[in-house]
């Protein structure tokens, strides 16, 4: 086997400022508090920049700016709002290399994924919802559906720009204004997006970006003048948000955790299934809420499939996220790495067998090798809890009914995968699985035209498609 020569993407396309303020009312302003966060490159632990830790007063200022802008923005004809969104989509395409490199630097994800998956999807979401802005009367919510007002949006660190697009594009298309809080470990692309809003001449206050940690998010969610709360993140924080907005009448959408079953039947096309399993759990280092973290394999092909899977894992390349040949990048933060280690150690302690390919980890940064646990029982914590890392639990089944039973045996219900060549079985399984997205003979596909969201404790509401508009309309 030949080794690949390093093929690093250049960082020169990105200009990172040493320090960032808050983007409020179309201007960069300083935080009124003293606290600042450092955001680091998880692949090297190098400090990339300092960002403000917005206080309650900062959040209040941002909400007021959004409230002021709401009158202007919601009064614009939909066709004008559409043009702004189309503009933003175009600028994202023009600056996509810059955004992709910055995303990989700040998040640790391979440039192959930020460049080929994240950025095209980000642009696509703005294009898609731009088209809705002047067609809301056709969306099935009555002839003149009205926007809600100010949307408070809190997004996670696993897909910083994509989650921003999922939140901001439909909100703006419907005539709302937004205050968005990016995750504390990945704020940089959201701050670059603020520049893009300025380039597009978006009216001041329509988009406001406040950086900070959980406290800032809580201040935003609890602000009395926020009409709509949109959150993507952990089920635990989702629960807190649901509790804190109880009785306020705020409209809430939550996209929370998952523990997806990826179900492989004995008649599945094996090589395709192996690729799907790898894509399902090792895409974005497993930092995916809909990751296929539970492999349910039919007992008759367990050995054959695991052999093929292990062979495939041996070819995955872990390392520099900016290298175009890298498959697996860095774990986003020290805290997340600690959590993955804790749950993996528990997996071993509870009796599951752990396997990773021979794989050297860089000295600096946060790294975790792709890992498989076999002999997993449904009661094991690695089979029940969301690891949010490159850790796959393997369980077996004998009959389709047993596969359904095991797949649905979780409080989550975000996604599921089915691999079989038998069409009628796919339809039967898709019908029985209690999950918001079912991928048959594929996995981890996303598209702005396609509603995404969970059943049960994976949260409520849908993002994407016509369904995604409902979250931002008074219906």
């Amino acid at each position, binding site marked *: 086997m030949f080794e690949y020569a390093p093929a690093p993407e250049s960082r020169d396309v990105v200009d990172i400022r040493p320090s960032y303020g808050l983007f409020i009312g179309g201007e960069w302003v300083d935080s009124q508090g003293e606290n600042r966060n450092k955001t680091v490159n998880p692949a090297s632990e190098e400090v990339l920049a300092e960002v403000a830790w917005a206080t309650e007063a900062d959040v209040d200022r941002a909400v007021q700016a959004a409230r002021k802008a709401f009158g202007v923005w919601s009064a614009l004809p939909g066709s004008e709002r559409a043009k702004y969104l189309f503009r933003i989509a175009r600028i994202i395409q023009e600056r996509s290399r810059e955004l992709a490199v910055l995303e990989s630097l700040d998040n640790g994800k391979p440039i192959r994924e930020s460049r080929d998956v994240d950025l095209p999807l980000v642009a*696509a979401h703005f294009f898609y919802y731009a088209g809705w802005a002047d067609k809301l009367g056709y969306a099935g919510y009555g002839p003149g559906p009205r926007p809600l007002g100010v949307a408070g949006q809190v997004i996670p660190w696993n897909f910083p720009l994509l989650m921003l697009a999922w939140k901001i594009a439909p909100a703006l298309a419907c005539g709302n204004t937004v205050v968005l809080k990016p995750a504390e470990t990945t704020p940089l692309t959201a701050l670059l997006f603020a520049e893009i809003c300025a380039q597009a001449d978006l009216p001041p206050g329509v988009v406001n970006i406040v950086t900070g940690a959980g406290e800032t998010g809580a201040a935003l969610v609890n602000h009395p003048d926020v009409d709509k709360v949109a959150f993507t993140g952990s089920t635990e924080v989702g629960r807190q948000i*649901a509790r804190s907005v109880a009785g306020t009448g705020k409209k809430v959408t939550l996209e929370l955790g998952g523990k997806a079953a990826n179900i492989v039947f004995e008649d599945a096309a094996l090589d395709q299934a192996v690729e799907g399993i790898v894509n399902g759990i090792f895409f974005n280092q497993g930092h995916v809420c809909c990751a296929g973290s539970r492999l349910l394999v039919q007992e008759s092909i367990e050995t054959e499939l695991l052999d093929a899977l292990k062979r495939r894992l041996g070819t995955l390349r872990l390392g520099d996220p900016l290298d175009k040949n890298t498959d697996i990048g860095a774990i986003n933060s020290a805290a997340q790495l600690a959590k993955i280690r804790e749950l993996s150690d528990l997996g071993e302690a509870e009796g599951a067998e752990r396997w990773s390919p021979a794989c050297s980890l860089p000295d600096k940064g946060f790294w975790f090798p792709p890992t498989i646990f076999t002999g997993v029982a449904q009661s094991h914590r690695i089979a029940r809890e969301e690891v949010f890392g490159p850790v796959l639990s393997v369980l077996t089944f004998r009959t389709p009914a047993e596969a359904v039973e095991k797949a649905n045996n979780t409080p989550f219900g975000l996604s599921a995968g089915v691999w079989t060549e038998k069409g009628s079985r796919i339809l039967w399984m898709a019908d029985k699985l209690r999950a*918001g997205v079912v*991928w048959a003979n594929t996995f981890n596909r996303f598209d702005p035209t*396609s*509603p995404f969201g969970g059943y049960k404790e994976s949260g*409520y509401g*849908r993002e994407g498609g016509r*369904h995604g508009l409902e979250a931002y309309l008074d219906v």
Partner: protein
Amino acid sequence: MTKAEKPGRARAGKQSGGQTTRRADASVDAAAPAASGETAVESVDPVESADGGSGVGETAPARERAARLAVRKTYKLYIGGAFPRSESGRSYAVASSRGDFLANASRASRKDARDAVTAARKAFGGWSGATAYNRGQILYRVAEMLEGRRAQFTAELAEAGTKRAGEVVDAAVDRLVWYAGWSDKIAAVAGSTNPVAGPYFNVSSPEPTGVVAVVAPDEPLLGLVSVIAPVIVTGNTCVVIASERAPLPSITLAEVLATSDLPGGVVNILTGSAAEIAPWLAAHMDVNALDLTGVTDEGLAVACEEAAAENLKRVFRPAATDWSADPGTRRLTAFLETKTVWHPTGV
């Protein structure tokens, strides 16, 4: 309780023959032309028709006792298709709008609520798996059975103080028929095929969310039907807390449901105190959604919403509802999930 009915029987040309219980009246009225029963009841102003008797001991005049002692109905709960008494053994007195004693209704306990959730969960697989056509037929059957008991409901509603009770029964029947027709259409209206940028077949369709706990509004029949029908026509099962003030038509509706081919457990009706039972349902980990339509106490509503956060129940809490207005699809979609299925296309 018979005051409102006596003129009705007279108009319908029936000889009262000393029949005084609701049940007996209903069977008589049901046999009579429906229109006459309705007109009769509507023409009665409960206040004006007061015959001087009042209070528990005097509602059955001596002449009736002399002819025949009424066989009163025992109002129980409706759980899993059966009519059990409350596990707690408790009941509470239900009065007419004029304050007359009507019956003792069961006062459901936390255990009853848990049993009802168990029954609803058990019924969910079969009911959600039934074809939409089948569910629509069964809802229509409920409307048929309700229509057949028109006089009984008209009388019960009149006692509960409902004005124009006959029209309200009509509206309840019509609402059931309206929702029945939605069973096989909501997927077309709320679903979609999605033109994704790639070689995939991709379709989104609505599915029931699971077990829904419903606090019914204080609108004993039309409101009750309007909250139950949209929940079940889409394949959910439910546990309903009936109007506390006027629970009797709810249990009579349960009799309609029980004889309508609706599988046991799809609808479970509890009578008693919403303040006492609702928090347990809101906190129950096997309940998927909460309809707080009937909760008027702000503190109770907030407590329920907070409890519902624990397993992220879907909470539906509409503003004041006009039950005579076109309901739209809001109540249908509130308890639906959207499932998106992807499959590659190719040869």
